[in-house]
């Protein structure tokens, strides 16, 4: 067994530098690497590019980095929930690249899998395709999209073991698996870290080969963005 455990979030984030590109898992506030985001805020790393489906809310998730003006560029598919984000984008303080959600996921997956580029129908005929190669396959038009290049992938899983194997829960899985192994170094934070052998190999979602560092997060707030419930009769 190749051991991937590090003591804590500080050790897990060793080597991060200003100007780097990070991938961060999560959909809205669901399945985001909360402890790592707090550490990025604490370290006050500057001028970073963040690849993340969303940008958090004003006071949680990536919104915390936004507030401190640590982000130079965001690559996302949907940023509707964050007023400060919209302000920084419209004022030009922050560069933003909005891309289709499936393209975002596939550019991660491609980076992980050694595929430099691929063709997708998403965005053909729109401003997303401007300046990109397009090609016809079987009578339909496609746009060439390239794999991401990132320095770190920061992901969050439900359970993990010392070997870096990961299991996700519910829809907190989202972008996390595709980002594992997509950056040069993948750091996984988990709610529960167990010794090797305790997780059933049949149930592993992401094998440890894609994870370089793993630690158990100190605490999880797991904030709900839109609480919707129904009444019992």
């Amino acid at each position, binding site marked *: 067994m190749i051991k991937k455990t590090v003591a804590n979030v500080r050790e897990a984030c060793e080597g991060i530098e200003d100007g780097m590109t990070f991938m961060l898992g999560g959909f809205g506030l669901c399945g985001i690497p909360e402890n790592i985001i707090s550490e990025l805020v604490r370290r006050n790393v500057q001028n970073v590019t963040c690849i993340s489906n969303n940008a958090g809310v004003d006071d949680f998730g990536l919104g915390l980095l936004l507030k401190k003006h640590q982000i130079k560029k965001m690559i996302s598919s949907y940023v509707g929930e964050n007023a400060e984000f919209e302000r920084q984008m419209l004022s030009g303080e922050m560069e*933003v690249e909005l891309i289709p959600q499936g393209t975002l996921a596939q550019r991660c997956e491609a980076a992980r899998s050694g595929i430099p580029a691929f063709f997708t129908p998403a965005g053909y005929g729109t401003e997303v395709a401007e300046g990109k190669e397009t090609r016809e396959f079987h009578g339909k038009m496609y746009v060439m999209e390239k794999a991401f290049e990132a320095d770190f992938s920061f992901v969050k899983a439900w359970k993990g073991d010392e070997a870096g194997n990961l299991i996700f829960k519910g829809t907190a899985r989202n972008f996390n698996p595709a980002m594992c192994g997509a950056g040069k170094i993948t750091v996984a934070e988990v709610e529960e870290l167990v010794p090797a052998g305790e997780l059933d190999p049949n149930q592993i979602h992401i094998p440890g080969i894609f994870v370089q560092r793993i630690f158990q997060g100190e605490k999880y707030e797991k904030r709900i963005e839109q609480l919707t419930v129904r009444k019992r009769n």
Partner: protein
Amino acid sequence: MALTKEQIAQRIAKEVKDGYYVNLGIGIPTLVANFVRDDISVEFQSENGILGMGPFPYEGEEDPDLINAGKQTITALPGASFFDSAMSFGMIRGQHVDLTILGAMEVSQNGDIANWKIPGKMVKGMGGAMDLVASAENIIVAMMHTNREGESKLLKECSLPLTGVNCVKKIVTNLAVLEIKDGKFHLLERAPEVSIEEIQQATEGDLIINGEIAEMKF
């Protein structure tokens, strides 16, 4: 009478057939789930990674790890499955999802759709809409016939940045059900007590009216 948002959803629900996997967008499309007949089997896909999405949880049973693409807390029905975003969009681009229902700011008569950006004003992003409209064979747009200023949303050409080209085939608005064919809007049904003239006035694009146009039935 023009339809309410609930009635638009109710009319669209009639298009949902037994055995369909359906992706619902945010807004009116979300309401469609409430009106699907009980005697057919349908599974709802949410692109953040669930098939077999159920209703909102009972108070106190909400799970922060279980949300839909609108970030609302939901439940999973028996037979549900979870998957990652790359696989989710594999389902969508690979045309495994049978029906996509989404909202729009504008639709043009050749089937172009705009629903993600108003330059200089509203920039929220396209989310999964571009992947959905570029891939789905069967797309229904749910929207009001006109915008808040009373201007038509069914146009000769979209004025806003496009989400997809040549992809919309059916539209259900508060006034009518329309089909897009041969680069024109074709009126199929009208809302109860809404006249053809009213629909014509609210439609900027070319509108084809062939024979008697029946009122919608629910």
